[in-house]
């Protein structure tokens, strides 16, 4: 579903992502872990076509993001680490805007907004302007908007930040549901317990380089993910 091949991204002299290669298959939840500034968000933004990269290739469902970014964007949904949405629109206004862009019919969008809106407990607040929302409410609207066109791939940057425990649980269930229907999830997180429990595959990145990747069981072995992560950090300091 998502194939990253030897991705390189530099900012001036600094190498933010250094020959990173990953493969996320349909039905998988793939966790991306690393310390602050490790290159997670840069990799994620490159996968979404937001950030041009220096070399390498990224394929979404077999389509190159370099050659056909629009086709790739139609297949996926992206949620950034900070949900900066259009504050002058109401929740409904924003969701209608996103649904229009992705060509979601009136009936489909009504059904999906109602379903996911109620699951995330945001439906009743959709008539308010986004500017009046809390961080968590904005995050819920961002997640809801990402689900509107039923993407095959979801790329999420720190999706659980700001969510209440119930909403976080709902999002995890939705992620699993999407994977069971043949979709895939690629997300970054600092919450190692969540990654350990939720992910089928995990990759750990440090200073732009991939340290380890594989199934959750392969990566953690007999230890906890936290112990493995700290051990790897110490080894490379």
């Amino acid at each position: 579903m998502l194939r990253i091949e030897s991705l390189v991204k530099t900012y001036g002299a600094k190498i933010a992502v250094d020959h990173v290669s990953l493969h996320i298959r349909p039905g998988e939840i793939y966790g991306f872990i690393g310390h602050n500034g490790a290159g997670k968000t840069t990799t994620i933004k490159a996968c979404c076509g937001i950030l041009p990269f220096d070399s390498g290739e990224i394929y979404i469902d077999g389509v190159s993001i370099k050659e056909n970014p629009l086709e790739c964007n139609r297949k996926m949904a992206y949620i950034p680490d900070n949900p900066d949405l259009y504050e002058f629109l109401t929740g409904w206004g924003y969701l209608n805007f996103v649904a229009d862009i992705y060509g979601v019919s009136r009936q489909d969008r009504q059904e999906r907004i109602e379903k996911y809106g109620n699951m995330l407990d945001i439906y009743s607040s959709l008539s308010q302007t986004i500017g009046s929302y809390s961080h968590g409410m904005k995050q819920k609207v961002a997640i809801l908007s990402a689900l509107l066109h039923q993407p095959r791939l979801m790329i999420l940057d720190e999706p659980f930040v700001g969510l209440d425990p119930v909403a976080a649980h709902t999002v995890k269930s939705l992620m699993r549901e999407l994977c069971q229907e043949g979709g895939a999830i690629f997300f970054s997180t600092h919450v190692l317990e969540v990654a350990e429990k939720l992910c089928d595959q995990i990759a750990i990145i440090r200073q732009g380089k991939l340290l380890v990747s594989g199934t959750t069981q392969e990566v953690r072995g007999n230890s906890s993910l936290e112990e493995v992560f700290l051990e790897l950090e110490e080894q490379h300091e």
Partner: protein
Amino acid sequence: MNKSLFQIQFRSLWNTLFGKVSRTKKRRGITKVLMGLLAIYVIVCIFLSSGFLFYEMAAFLVPAGLSLLYFSVAGLFSLLLCFIGTIFTVHSQLFRAKDNEFLLSLPIRPSSVLLSRLFLLMLMEVILLLPIILPAIFVYGAFAAITPLQILFLIAGCVLLLCLSTALSTACGWITTVLSLRIRHHNFITVVLTLLLFVGFYGAFFGLQNYFSDLLIHGHAIQSALQIALPPVYWFGQLCLGNASALFPLLLWCLLPFGGVCLLLAKTFWKLALSSPAPSKQKSTAAAKDLRSPLQTLLFKEFKRFFTLPAYMLNTTVGCIFSLLFSAFLLLNQNALELMFQEAIPETLIFPICMGILAFFSVLNNASSVALSLEGKSLWILKSMPVPPPTVILAKTLPSVVLNLPFLLLNSIVCWITFSLSLPQGLLLLLIPQLLNVLSALSGVVVNLHLPNFDWVNETLLIKQSASSIVAALSALGFLLIPGLLYLPLYGMISAELYFSVWAFLFLAAILGFWHYLKTRGAQRFNHL
């Protein structure tokens, strides 16, 4: 701590004006040189136009012994310009700044935050004051001797006038903020109040010639009436003439209001800065809408943003306001105008003059020049969506065109009928302002693509004073000035219809050129934003 606060405020102003240049994307030498040349050109233009105005005044007032009136008028101009230039910024800069909560959460006294914001406001006023005061003093020097003491007093007077204008604009900003906290439709109220101020300002501006004539005819009477009517500018004038005794009354007139406003702010700033405006009552839109095309929905979003930001609405539609006022003026003064044109202006000039006026109105609106920058931190939405960049760019261009179209059309029709223009003239009058409208909208987006600023804290400053909005406004004026200036030597040698037909083709070619650029290189640039 205060030094750091001032530095941050200054950097924020700098970044808004000139855009943040990242360490990895340093501006190239040629860009720096071009920007420098442009800045020099703008400064020279402003100083020259101000200088000419003061020269005309000084030539009459100084020899007639009305130097006091000369300096009082200079003081009045400075005061008004500083007040009008900052009044729209105070509300957003002082009370609604996005970093207020953050700064007030730090162990800093609110008074320090307040002082740093007032410092920035006064800095902006200095930028506005210099183009008035410097030419005024230089021109005066050409007619009379100036002593070093006079220069010293002039500087002191300017500082005091800055305090007064800060007090006035801050008081207005305070009232707006208090109203916005209590009134639900505060956006509407802000727009109405600002429009009234606009109409007042431009009414005064258009009446400048009459005031100027009055000044020359009734100079002595006005000079003696100033002490009662406008004491601060009267005492400023006295101080500039070297009268030391004027310092005390001027101190009182300027520092008392400034102190009062500071006291008011000290008591209320914390509360006002942390209060949220009364939420607007939303109509129930709790429904999924019918599917629209990406362009339609992007346009809807752009218009929605336009109508929810009073500063955006007012600062980018000055041409529309002028157009409306001009149409009303023509319709209400039809007979007077006919007489005026028949007697004073040759008939062959009526059409070019109408064209010039309408073209001027069409290039005044530039909503597109900050349309991309206004995306700010939400730019990721547009970039992650399956929408081709040319569609996004078109959606950024069209609102400016659509908003101006009816006003310009109305103007063209009213001019055509009022001055009984011929069919070719009327058609050209319909066509060229609209072509310029499209051209300035497209060039605005081009400029914004090259001078984007997504790290703004204050959208009002971005709209009013960012590099993109200033450069776009100047380039649009270029589209007007080049044909206008070239016409002067050709007047009488070539028919106006033929001349403007050629320009219509040139504008059309420029529009196609700009659009081609936006679709190709512009789209690439958008991808790299």
